[in-house]
């Protein structure tokens, strides 16, 4: 009889790429829930839009590339990209924003570079930056946390807002109520206030900064932190990048805050507002676009942390996660090339 030939090893782990991706997506659920609690159903609608666009786009590209559509879709990487983009953009942003962003992320950033494993940039962040630069107004009008909002955006008004049914009476009604709820993010507010000559303490008296760091945002970040901790526990990600980001951001922020508390934002504010935790655990840890060796990952993470701080403090944009991640992505191959572990039996690297 014929015997099966195979190369050693003949056993392997059951943890496969699709499982890894699925776990990443599942670990995003706590953050998603908290975000929806504070910012309404908009995020969930964006999520559905993003996921369906992502899968359609991926399938179309696979069809064009004559590849196995099912095998590619089942690796769940498109799912993760879609979810990350959906939670990153304003909940009530118009539908075409997320569709454009997702298409760009999947088709251009990922598939045109050769598909999973070959993309240089984090697809979700590249798409985010595209949207931020192209549609700054839509991308910066974030919804107010429901705890301080005058009108709460319910599911229906969110739908009308996202799909821009402006012409009916009903739509106008909801639109009005929605408009009253959008506002700048805490980091944006702070930046504007600082540029207007206010001190951080004065600015922080605004209702948006109620709570631990900023209303809603603190708990959203906390939820992503919990999700990240679960991923660490499940060994879906390694700790190096996340800890390096948080540590370097904390060190930079502490340094600035100690020098001039009035003009620099507190470390706590930096760590628990904006997309810090999301970036530290879910975005920067994307293995494809990160450095690979443990030491390289520490450098990669530290670089993101510093860049986030520098851009937030001195740059033109209130939040900096996407830019920082993309800049670090560019450096990843460089880091990998120069940061090689010392192999067994070798005195130094190389």
């Amino acid at each position: 009889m014929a015997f099966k030939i195979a190369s050693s090893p003949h056993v392997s782990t059951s943890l496969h790429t699709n499982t890894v991706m699925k776990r990443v997506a599942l670990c995003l659920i706590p953050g998603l829930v908290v975000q929806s609690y504070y910012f309404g159903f908009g995020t969930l609608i964006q999520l559905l839009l993003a996921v369906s666009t992502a899968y359609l786009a991926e399938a179309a590209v696979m069809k064009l590339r004559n590849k196995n559509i099912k095998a590619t879709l089942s690796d769940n990487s498109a799912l993760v990209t879609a979810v990350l983009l959906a939670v990153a953009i304003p909940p009530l942003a118009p539908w075409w924003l997320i569709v454009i962003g997702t298409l760009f992320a999947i088709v251009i950033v990922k598939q045109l570079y050769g598909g999973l494993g070959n993309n240089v940039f984090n697809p979700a962040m590249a798409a985010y930056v595209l949207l931020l630069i192209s549609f700054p107004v839509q991308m910066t009008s974030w919804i107010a946390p429901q705890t301080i909002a005058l009108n709460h955006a319910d599911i229906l008004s969110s739908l009308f807002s996202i799909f821009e049914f402006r012409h009916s009476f009903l739509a106008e009604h909801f639109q009005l109520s929605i408009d009253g709820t959008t506002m700048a993010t805490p980091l944006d507010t702070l930046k504007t206030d600082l540029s207007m000559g206010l001190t951080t303490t004065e600015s922080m008296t605004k209702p948006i900064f109620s709570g631990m760091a900023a209303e809603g945002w603190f708990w959203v970040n906390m939820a992503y932190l919990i999700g990240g901790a679960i991923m660490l526990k499940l060994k879906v990600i390694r700790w190096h990048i996340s800890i390096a980001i948080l540590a370097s951001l904390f060190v930079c922020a502490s340094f600035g805050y100690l020098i001039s508390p009035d003009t620099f934002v507190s470390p706590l504010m930096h760590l628990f507002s904006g997309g810090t935790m999301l970036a530290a655990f879910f975005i920067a840890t994307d293995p494809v676009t990160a450095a690979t060796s443990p030491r390289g990952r520490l450098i990669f993470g530290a670089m993101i942390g510093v860049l986030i701080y520098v851009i937030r403090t001195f740059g033109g944009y209130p939040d900096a996660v996407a830019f920082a991640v993309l800049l670090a992505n560019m450096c990843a191959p460089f880091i990998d090339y120069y940061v090689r572990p010392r192999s067994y039996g070798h005195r130094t690297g190389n």
Partner: protein
Amino acid sequence: MLTLLEQLDKGFLWQSPGGIHPPQLKTLSNQSAISRLPLAKRFIVPVPLVGEQAILTVSVGDKVLKGQALTEGSGFTYLPVHAPTSGHIIAIEQHASNHASALPILSCVIEADGLDTWCELTSNSLEQLSKTEILSKIKQAGIAGMGGAAFPSHVKLNPASEIDLVIINGIECEPYITSDDRLMRDHSDEILAGVGIIHHLLNPQRIIIAIEDNKPEAAKNMQAAIERSSLPKGQIRVTVIPTKYPSGGEKQLIQIITGKEVPSGAIPAQLGIVVHNVGTAYAIQDAIYHGKPLVERVVTLTGENIAKPGNYWLPLGTTVADALQAVDFKPSTQQKVIVGGPMMGYALADLDVPILKGTNCLLVPSPEEIAPDTTEKACIRCGECAVACPALLLPQQLFWHAKAQEYDKAASFNLKDCIECGCCSYVCPSDIPLVEYYRVAKSALKTAAEEKHQAEQAKIRFEARLQRLEDEKNAREAKAKEAAAKRQANMKSSDKDAVAAAMARIAAKKAQAESNTSVSEAPTVTTQTAIDPKKAAVNAAIERAKAKKAAQADTSNVKAADHTDALLDNINADDVKTDDKQAKVAAAIARAKAKKAAQANDVISSQTDAITGSEHNKDQVTPPDDKQARVAAAVARAKAKKLAQAAASSSATDPIATPDANVPTESTDATDASADHSTEPLTPSNTIEPQTADSSVSDKQARVAAAVAKAKAKKLAQVAAGTSATDPIATPDANVPTESTDATDATDASADHSTEPLTPSNTIEPQTADSSVSDKQARVAAAVAKAKAKKLAQVAEDNQDQSLENQHNEQHNEQHTEMSTALSPEQAKKAKVAAAVAKAKAKKLAKSAEQEEQ
């Protein structure tokens, strides 16, 4: 700070990086003691070293006893192979090997007689033997590392440097395998006895028996055995290490036990450490104390498709099929039969392959047990492979480069330090067969390195050859001037001077008359043509002079020949008898050829030199370079096929070139053998050599070359042809009375005359050598030669164009210009006149030779 020895004594352990924890599944096979299976009927014993380091001591049909050595050999790493049972050798053939490739390998097939009779065994005690004797016994017992690599143990037991630490490897980190586990449980005292021998040989400061903590019984038994043994207490201990794959790897084990890393490319002995497997220790005591060679080993037969998994003593050479059948193997579809463990073992395609010294496990898993193959997916650069790598490599970078076939880049990531443990593939979430990529890359690098090495060698050879040719050319040019001067002197003193001069004048005039049309030729050409006719005339004169002298010198030549023969006796006594005969044969053939060849010489004789000729000659003047000559022969043989005609003509020379010249029968063989010459007849320029500067190769050189060639000729009839080039050089010298010994040299050196048919001057030779010839063989040879010479003549004519080109390359005959009298520079065709003269003479000579022959 504790010293290393103190730390070793405390059982301090270091951390080995990476590693994995695959499911163990050892309990499947380690529940019962090692047992035996019924003896198989047929055994396959590979003898891979035969032909390299060893010879077979048995042949088909021989009766062999269990433990009888089948091979005999020498060499540091040579290991004898023994018959695993008593029986008969029924075949010695190429048989599929127990290797992933299953490539066939020379094997003895033994049919067991079922008696399993041992050959005579001698027991020894350690005190009776010196260390050298012990090592020799270990070697003669054929003991190789039993952990899988099967490296000859005596080599590791005889290190160049001092050994401080011996680690006895009982780790057995592969899931499933339990052969060492069971051996330690069942034969701990025997293993300790083997350890005692190792201790005796290496005298290390410490011996550590390392066992993973998943084998507590083995550790307990070994500890108890240590208590019972007579080995010095405190120097030997059992160290239990945590279970982690691949802790059993030599480098990893050393790191865990001592914290040291074996430097890349080095061996542990350089750290004063040697690692031996427990199975090896067992085999060593069996060899020394019982005199038993290594003919059986413990093999774990396991997997869910085996009804009776366990450990069994299997004679080496038992086929995998027999072994599995004996334990009720039930193959499933898509069955994998893995030799070794699931991590590093290889799957067999053919089960009719033998158990080897390093075969520690046969694993036949059910499909549920070991997952079916998965398809490779995209690498997501997760880096888990780097985390798992015990060699601290970057498997993912290696993979990118290996996949892109950028093997040099892969090498720069220390690919060679990969131990192929499989941890990276095991953890890969994308199911990439990383190890397979590395194997391909490694073998590609190995091949490239070999090719590079060979290219470098070739370059060195080539440059050396160029240098040598350059030197030889210079030497020849120097000689040429000398010889030319000498000839000039001879001419003047000769009473033939006047005749020669007259002939030359006549030739020159005729040539002048014929070549009026070529006045407008380019200056360089005209200069050369001026030389040509003059030289041709001179040549003609020389020939005539030679003819007479040579005839007179005949008897003295024979004497000289005898003399040279005597000299050559020292080199090859066997050839002496043939020499004389050959000289005659050669002469006869040459004479016959000359007749025909002369007709073809219009152009050739007008040609005064040949750069190509001399170059060609250079190529040929290399008899000492045996290899090169062979290469040349091979090349020439290839050419010979194309140039059937040329080859045919050259074959005529062969009976002469071959020392054993049996003329009529050898002529066909000769076609091949003389392939070296096949180009020569095509190179008319060679014919000029005798008359020109190229004759300058010193007597000594020619003689040495001839002698060397003759010595070789026996072995390499073809190569003898290589000497031919020296002969034409030596031959013309023979015609000058003062150098007459050369003529005999030339003839002696199996008298290669491949160029002679084209050389009018050589027509004299028949007279020199042949006056006394009335040999039947010579006549036959002559007949053959004549027939061939006809063809040759045609070939020579075909080459007229070529030779004309050579004319323009003429560089060496300036000395002759000095001799020119009143010749106008444009007399290109005078050469023809000279040739005609030569031709006529050659005809006459040939005719007279023929008459003489009859």
